[in-house]
């Protein structure tokens, strides 16, 4: 409902206020008169009317304000001769998410706005999720809405020539939200998946969208098995009965759909890799090949690192070490932990120990620290 109202008004703030007012009126009115036949349409009409009233008030106050085109017929019907109760509420969530993720807005604003507008989270909930003060988040959202209005960020699905980049931005925001949730706050991960699924329904012909949802589902399906108590469990050692088989199946179906749509983009590739890693046994050469494609697409040294791991798992730790030694990732803890593991397999315990120590200097979390210390112990 908010989405259609934003579309109608072109003003986020006004749409939000009007929506809240409509709900408040509904609470009172419906208790007294009972529920209308089409509560959705009632709410939308009421919200539109409140917004129109507000705009009229503003207009008479301001001297020369172009503002928005307000369709005067809204009080009576929707311009098509239908009474409000017959109105169909258009689904404009796609327009809304592209607006929220417009590059003219700062990334953190895109994330907050998406969660507020499409995730339905309150400002306080979003503040909590990102560990900032509620006032800070409130300001962030206000500024973003102001910019949308003042700078003319459009409420629409971008035209074809802009769509690839803009869609990539939307997917990046959703994945960012997912990764915030992945390290502990499950709610955000679930929210991201919900957003991804909605996008997947709204854009059925976009393979990268299905790829992203599949990728998130693969990660999410394994969340119960990643830790025993406080300790990290490697993929190979995970208790597969703790995996959510339903989500993995859904992921595979989405990957198939994406591949059928000729999708070979980064999210589809990552999803395919994640799905392959839920097989038993894992086809490591295939995983390595997919990482190779991904590395060429993204130019990312981290992807190359993952390729090296796959190459090692496929049986060539020497070749893997050669790949790793080419990478400029000296401040990245996983580079050193990977090197250490490869050196361990190549029977070079002293070099392995040095690498584990370097990794320990750089590592961020307690479970990882404990894991690395145990590994260090095994080569001393």
């Amino acid at each position, binding site marked *: 409902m908010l989405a259609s109202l934003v579309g109608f008004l072109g003003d986020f703030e006004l749409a939000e206020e009007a929506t809240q007012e409509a709900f408040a009126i509904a609470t009172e009115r419906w208790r007294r008169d009972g529920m209308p036949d089409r509560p959705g349409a009632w709410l939308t009409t009421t919200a539109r009317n409140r917004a129109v009233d507000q705009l009229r008030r503003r207009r008479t106050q301001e001297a020369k304000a172009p503002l928005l085109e307000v369709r005067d017929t809204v009080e009576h019907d929707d311009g098509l001769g239908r009474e409000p109760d017959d109105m169909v509420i258009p689904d404009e969530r796609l327009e809304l998410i592209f607006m929220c993720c417009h590059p003219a807005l700062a990334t953190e604003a895109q994330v907050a706005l998406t969660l507020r507008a499409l995730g339905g989270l309150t400002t306080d909930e979003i503040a909590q999720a990102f560990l900032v003060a509620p006032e800070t988040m409130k300001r962030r959202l206000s500024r973003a809405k102001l910019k949308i209005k003042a700078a*003319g960020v*459009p409420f629409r699905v971008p035209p074809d020539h802009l769509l690839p980049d803009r869609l990539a931005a939307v997917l990046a925001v959703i994945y960012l939200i997912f990764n915030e949730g992945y390290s502990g706050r499950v709610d955000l991960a679930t929210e991201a998946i919900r957003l991804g699924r909605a996008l997947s329904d709204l854009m059925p012909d976009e393979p990268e969208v299905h790829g992203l949802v599949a990728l998130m589902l693969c990660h999410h399906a394994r969340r119960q098995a990643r830790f025993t108590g406080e300790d990290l469990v490697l993929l190979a050692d995970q208790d597969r009965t703790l995996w959510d088989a339903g989500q993995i199946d859904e992921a595979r179906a989405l990957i198939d759909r994406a591949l059928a749509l000729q999708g070979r983009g980064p999210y589809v590739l990552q999803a395919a890799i994640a799905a392959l890693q839920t097989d038993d046994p894992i086809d490591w050469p295939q995983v390595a090949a997919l990482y190779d494609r991904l590395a060429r697409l993204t130019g990312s040294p981290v992807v190359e690192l993952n390729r090296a791991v796959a190459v090692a798992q496929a049986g060539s730790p020497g070749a893997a070490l050669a790949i790793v030694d080419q990478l400029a990732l000296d401040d990245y803890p996983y580079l050193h932990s990977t090197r250490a593991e490869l050196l361990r397999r190549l029977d070079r315990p002293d070099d392995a120990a040095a690498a584990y120590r370097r990794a320990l200097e750089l590592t961020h979390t307690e479970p990882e620290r404990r894991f690395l210390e145990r590994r260090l112990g095994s080569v001393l």
Partner: protein
Amino acid sequence: MEYALLVHEKPGAYDGLSDEERQAVLGEYWTLRDDPRVVAGAALHPVETVTTVRVHDGDTLVTDGPFADTKEVFAGWYVIEADDIDAAIEIASRCPAARFGGSVEVRPVLEPRL
């Protein structure tokens, strides 16, 4: 909606270019001026010709040079009439300065215009 496109050039951006190439760049700026959405525009003389004016306690202070020593130099502007920011971005991206190491600031104009 009206937008101001404020063009900032990287100093020495066109140093390596031949006269012909420089003419071509100028031509691009003129072509942009012909876009029906462009309402006004002007190129400015180089930064060596700038004079800065301040008034402090009723005294007018005049100094040589721009108000701030910035890396990029403000080189000119357009005012355009566009439906939304995407249209403004598209026009801005066609300013040569943007691809020669400079940048174009896109700012909505406060209406009514002065």
